């Protein structure tokens, strides 16, 4: 069992995972990232979406790298800090869990 999996399981169990996810979604909406990506998708669809050959998968592969670069550093930083706080707060519990 890797550390990453333990962290995954722990955050899911404590409900922090869902809170972090919400925080990220909210921040991305607030900073306009959502709208930007929406616009990006729209432009791509207008360009290439003629005919029905263009699939969601294709759209995702095209949008993902661009969308990633659009995420503001402030959001990344805040999220990192938040995850760090959660993990340090629960460090002892996770370590307990780690022991065989």
């Amino acid at each position, binding site marked *: *069992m890797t550390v*990453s*999996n*333990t962290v*995954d*399981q*722990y955050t*899911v*169990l*404590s*409900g922090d995972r*869902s*809170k972090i*996810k*919400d925080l990220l*979604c*909210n921040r991305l*909406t*607030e900073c306009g990232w959502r709208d930007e990506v929406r616009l990006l998708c729209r432009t791509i669809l207008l360009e290439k979406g003629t005919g029905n050959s263009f*699939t*969601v*998968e294709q759209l995702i592969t095209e949008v993902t790298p661009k969308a990633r670069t659009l995420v503001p550093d402030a959001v990344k930083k805040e999220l990192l800090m938040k995850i760090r*706080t959660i993990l340090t707060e629960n460090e002892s*519990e996770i370590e*307990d*869990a*780690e*022991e*065989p």
Partner: protein
Amino acid sequence: MRLGTLSPYSHEFKKSENRPSSYLISFRSQSAKVAKIRRKQRKCDKAFVPSQPCTKRTKTKENSVDSNTSVLSSASSSSTYSSGSAVVAGIGVGVGNNKRPGAGVGRGTAANETVASSAPTPTPATTTTTGALTSAAGRCAAFFGEAVARGGRGGGAGVGGAGESATKAKKEEEQLTKGQSQKSPLNAADFSIVRSLRTVEKLATELDANVSATASSTADASSAVMSETGCRHYQSYVKEHSYDTFRVIDAYFAACVNRDAREKKAIHCNCFECGSYGIQLYACLHCIYFGCRGAHITSHLRAKKHNVALELSHGTLYCYACRDFIYDARSREYALINRKLEAKDLQKSLGWQPWIPTAKETNLLLANARRRLVRPNQTIGLRGLLNLGATCFMNCIVQALVHTPLLSDYFMSDRHDCGSKSSHKCLVCEVSRLFQEFYSGSRSPLSLHRLLHLIWNHAKHLAGYEQQDAHEFFIATLDVLHRHCVKAKAEHENKSNSSSSGSGTNSSSSSSSHCYGQCNCIIDQIFTGMLQSDVVCQACNGVSTTFDPFWDISLDLGETTTHGGVTPKTLIDCLERYTRAEHLGSAAKIKCSTCKSYQESTKQFSLRTLPSVVSFHLKRFEHSALIDRKISSFIQFPVEFDMTPFMSEKKNAYGDFRFSLYAVVNHVGTIDTGHYTAYVRHQKDTWVKCDDHVITMASLKQVLDSEGYLLFYHKNVLEYE
């Protein structure tokens, strides 16, 4: 073929005896600590995984059944349904797996809890495996009992011997349990999809009962988006399997509705191919299978000819046949309920949700195709107000209120639904009309005689043609607005109640009008904060804490009695003084609850919760026994500032307490007579001065240099409901 794939599987059972049992234990005791589970898992992993690293995965690939790692089990009962390829999905959340198999396979084991432990000690290897499988099938069959019955299978006729072949056993098992489900109710210890479904349904009804409004709003939403019916593949899936599988998987693995669900998700919800907890996992809705986005899930869907999968991080449905995400109104409703349950369980806000116009809103938008585009330097939203004879106190407050973003959002979206027929008596309706007037585009000054009349009627102390205090008027207006909001809501509820079930909520609505701390009318949502007051006993250091709702913060400007008679120079100074611990002195001893005697104590205010709009009242008018005077000293106030230092819980980093100035009410003159004007922020970085019917542009410097009597700050970042 199946036998071949099953034999390594059964060996596993022998090798890792403690593995399934440890799982069983952890499922049994729902309160099992994660640590315990983790330890058990590690033990198992050590004992088992290194020796046979890939059997587990191979097996899942072959069968999509993983009773070792997963309590979820499935039965690919290709022969049960006429379609021939349909697979029944059963979720055994929690385990209790092996009860029915015992009975089902006919080894005569009683269907009770002890049987669970009999699974890991298999006698003939193959039978155990089939046992595990059939148990799944059993549960599925019980769950999909109707479906099977519809399929026209004869009840309980054994087709093949138990343990002969997996398929046959399963088939038989399904029929058998189908019979069982008709004869006897499900065993209580059997955590099955039925049970999970019940949990989810129970929680959902509780939620509906608590928030009666939710039910109506969901109904509204559903009628509006009824056109969304997914794709034809999903429709046929639903026809065959109903919404229950979706509902339970969503409730347990997408939005975990309770601790139990989170536990299940933490343990089982990882990719069957690579074991990762992935950023985006999909769950197959036909059988038990989790897979990462991309190759893992698609190869499964392709291989098994399954169409519908659920994306677990957002709860979106994916149809493999369409190669697209699909949207289905009913499923969305269920998903929304699950999201609400999750939010309630974790005590978090619901998160951002896109706006879906209701039928009414869509029609309104269609009917009013003309849009008004607001450009910078446009005067829409600005109107002068006539002075009706010393009513400048009212005009400046109305200007400030009209320019409160949240309040204008509320009234401009026509949210006030007045229950009473006599809406001309309702102040909220009047303010609603006022907003329409302000944004009508007309530039002539408005006369507020109706509003004034209403205030006179409802706040008698303000009646008459004398000059009044703007702050007093502000508080009185909020009070009347709040009362009318509550009244309108109560009347509305009564109306809807009398039509359906009589007047049951009378008591609750009247009680809510008394304690406005818990009211959720628009005024309370925007203006009400909570003040915490800690009284510390000097003898025993015992703290007694009380909470009081507030609409504004009144700040002293005079010399402080302690700390060498300093006069505050800035708003921050005033706030520091306001939240400083204050010694109550020997004259005001308070009975301490721990000492049981009257002791000297200190009292300290702090802000427990902040409203979206904080208004500060600088006490410029000093009324004392000796002299009434106006303090005209300059108090510096910032455009933007962070209220975090004045909060009760500074460590709570989740909140954002930055505020921006949007309106300032000024008083010129003496304590007896004078004139009120207001600066309001019209658009970002655009300030205007409202002096009754005269509206002029103003600079930010002018605003900040003004004396300031009432200061209105708006929260920068709003939290979600």
